[in-house]
C-alpha cells in the first residue's frame, strides 16, 4: 500500500510529468487559458491516460512480448491509443452532449499528447506490473491535471496583468511555467 502511495506521490509531485519530465506540454500551454477548459482537459486526460496505460500494458504482455516483436511497440501502442481515444470521443459525443462539451473537444488533442504515449513507454521501461501501470498512468494524469489547473487559474489572473507587450501570451506563460518548475524543484528528494 505504501509503495503504491509513494509511486503515486512520486509521479504527481516529484517527477511531475509536465514540469519535470517535459511531457504533455503542448496541451499544457494550449488549453490552459481558462480554468473551465483546463478542468475539462484534466478530466479527459485522466481518463485517457489511465485507459492507455492499461491497454498498452495488455498489448505489451499479451501480444508484443510473446511474439517477440517489441520493435513494433511504438506502432501498436499509438494505434491502440488513437483508436481508444477516437472511439471514446464518438461515443461521448453521441450519448452525452453535455459531457462532450466538457471533454469531447479535448479528446482528439489527447491522442497527440505525448504524455499518453510517454506513460505507455515508461511503463514498459520501468517494468511496472498491471496495477503499477494503472497507478502510474493515473498518477501522471493527476500530476498533469494538478499543474494544468493551477496554471490556468494563474493565467486567468494574468489576463489582467500589465505584461510588457513582447512578453504577452505564450512568452509569459512559458516564464510562469518556468517559475512553477523552479518551485517543483523543492520536491526533489521527497521520494528517493
Amino acid at each position, binding site marked *: 500500500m505504501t509503495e503504491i502511495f509513494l509511486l503515486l506521490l512520486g509521479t504527481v509531485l516529484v517527477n511531475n510529468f509536465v514540469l519535470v519530465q517535459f511531457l504533455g506540454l503542448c496541451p499544457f500551454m494550449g488549453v490552459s487559458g481558462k480554468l473551465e477548459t483546463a478542468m475539462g482537459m484534466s478530466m479527459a486526460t485522466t481518463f485517457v491516460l489511465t485507459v492507455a496505460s492499461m491497454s498498452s500494458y495488455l498489448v505489451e504482455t499479451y501480444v508484443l512480448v510473446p511474439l517477440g516483436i517489441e520493435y513494433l511497440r511504438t506502432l501498436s501502442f499509438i494505434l491502440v491509443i488513437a483508436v481508444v481515444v477516437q472511439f471514446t470521443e464518438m461515443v461521448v459525443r453521441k450519448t452525452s452532449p453535455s459531457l462532450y462539451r466538457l471533454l469531447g473537444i479535448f479528446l482528439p488533442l489527447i491522442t497527440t499528447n505525448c504524455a499518453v504515449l510517454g506513460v505507455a513507454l515508461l511503463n514498459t521501461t520501468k517494468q511496472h506490473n498491471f496495477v503499477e501501470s494503472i497507478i502510474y498512468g493515473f498518477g501522471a494524469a493527476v500530476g498533469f491535471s494538478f499543474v494544468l489547473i493551477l496554471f490556468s487559474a494563474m493565467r486567468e*489572473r494574468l*489576463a*489582467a496583468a*500589465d505584461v510588457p507587450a513582447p512578453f504577452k501570451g505564450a512568452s509569459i506563460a512559458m516564464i510562469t511555467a518556468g517559475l512553477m518548475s523552479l518551485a517543483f524543484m523543492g520536491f526533489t528528494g521527497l521520494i528517493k
Partner: protein
Amino acid sequence: MKMFADYDQIMERISLQNLWDFPGGVHPTQKKSLSNQTDIQRIDLPSVVHIPVKQHIGVNGELIVKEGDTVKKGQPLTTSENSFAVPVHASTSGTVVAISDHVAAHPSGLSELTVTIECDGKDSEYEYTPMSDYAQRSKGEIIQAICAAGISGMGGAGFPTHLKANNVKPIEFLIINGIECEPYITSDDRLMREHAWQIRQGIDILCHLLQPKQVLIAIEDNKPEAFETMSIACQQEDNYHVVKVPTKYPAGGEKQLIQVLTSREVPSDGLPVDIGCLMYNVGTCYAIADAVIEGKPLIERVVTITGEAVDAPQNVWARIGTPIKHLLAQAQYHSEKQSYPRIIMGGPMMGFTLSSVQIPVVKITNCILVPAAKELPLVEDERACIRCSACADACPASLLPQQMFWHSKAKEYEKAQEYNLFDCIECGACAYVCPSEIPLVHYYRKAKADIRQQQLEKEKSEKARVRFEARKDRLQREKEAREEKHRLAAEARKQSLNKDGGAAKDKIAAALARAKAKKAKQQAQLKDKPSSDE
C-alpha cells in the same frame, strides 16, 4: 442564509444595548463640529430657482405649467399619473421663465429638463389641504397625500416614499435612520435636535400606515444631543426605541443598519420588507409630517454647507431649486482656499463633484462640501493594486473589491459579476483605505454602467435580428409572388403568341436577347457599385 435572529432575540439585545456588527467599515475623521454648532438658518430667497422635473428614482411626471405662467410657492409643476412618478413643486412664488435643459445635480454634469422660476420675492403660498385628522383617514388617502407632496427618500437614494409606504407585507421593524455616518454632514443631526417632535409625528404617521411591531430610531453615538432630544420626543410610546449605534462608516447604509440592529441580511435580490424591515430617513419623516398634517409639499430641506473653504459653515433651510452659488455665498465661500476649486454635493465618501455652481439643490441634497486645499487632498494617479486586501477588510458587503477591480478594469464583466459587482453599495470604504489610491468605486460604476449598456445593446441586437429576418422572409415572399405573377403573365403571352403563329417567334427571341443584354449590363454595374435597382 445566516441564522435569522427572531423578534424577541433582537429586542432583548437592543434593550441591553448589545447590538450586532457589520463586517468591515472605516473610521474617517468626522469633522462634524464644523457645522453642527449653530441652529439651522433661514436664508434669503434666491432670485431664480431651477427645479428639475425628476429628482427621484422612477419616471418623469407630466408637466402642468408652461413658460410664462406665474406660480405660487408649493404649487405643483408636474402631476403623477404613473405611480413611479413623483411630482415637483414650485419652491417659491414667481414666473416660469424657462422649461428647458439645465445642468443637473448629477455627477455627469449633463443637463435635464428643468423648470426655471424667476422669484418674485413675495413667497406667496399655494392653498394646502391639511389632514390633521389623518388617524381617521384611509391609508390610500394618506399615501396619496404623501405622493402629492412629492416626497422621495431624503437619505440619498431618492426612492419614492409613497411606494415604500404602500406596503402589504408584515413589518416587524420600522427603522428610522438618523445615523448620518458620512463625515461632515450634520443636517439630520440638527434636524433631530431642533425638530424631534415633528419627526416623531412623521413616525406616528408611518406607524399608522405600516403597523410595525417596533420602531427603532437609530442614531450614531457621536450625536448625543440628537439622541437626547429624540429620546424625549419618543418616550411616551412603548414600541419606539431610540438606539445608539457605534460610530462606523457606513453604519447608515440601509443594509448595514439592518444588520447592526437585527443581524438580518436583505437578500441580494430582495428588499428590506422581505425580512420584515422598512427604513426611513429622519428627514423623510419630517417631510411626511409636513405633507400629511399640513398638506405642505416638499419644497425645502436642510442642507449642510461645510468644509474649510467656507468661513461660515452651517446648516440652512434651502428651497429646492436654489442654485448652489447662492448657498455658497451665504456661507462665505473662498475659492482661493482651494488649490483646485472643488464642490462636492453630499459627503466626502459618497458625494459627487459638481461641475457648475448653477446646479440646484434637489430633494436628496443633504450637504454641500467645499474642502480646503489640504483638507481632502487630491490623490495622485493610482498605482498598481498590491493585493493587500485592505479593501476587502473594509468592505461592509464582504465583497472582494480588488477582484472586482481587476475584472472591471480588464472589462471582464462576467467575472466581475461573478464576484457580485452589483451587490456593491458604492460606499467607498474600499477606495478610502486602498494604499495604492485606486479609485475603486469609479471602476465599479463604470463597469456597472457598461454592463447595463451592453445588456441594452444585446436586447437591441436581438430585436434587429428578428426584424432583419422578418424582412428577409418578406422579401422572399414578395419575390416568389412576383415570379409567380411573371410566370402567369408569360404563360398568358405564350398562349396568345401561339395563336399568332410563327411570326411572333422572332419577336420573342429579340425580346429575350434584349432582356439578356440588359441583365448582363446590370450585373456589371452591380459589381462595381452595389446599389438597389429600379
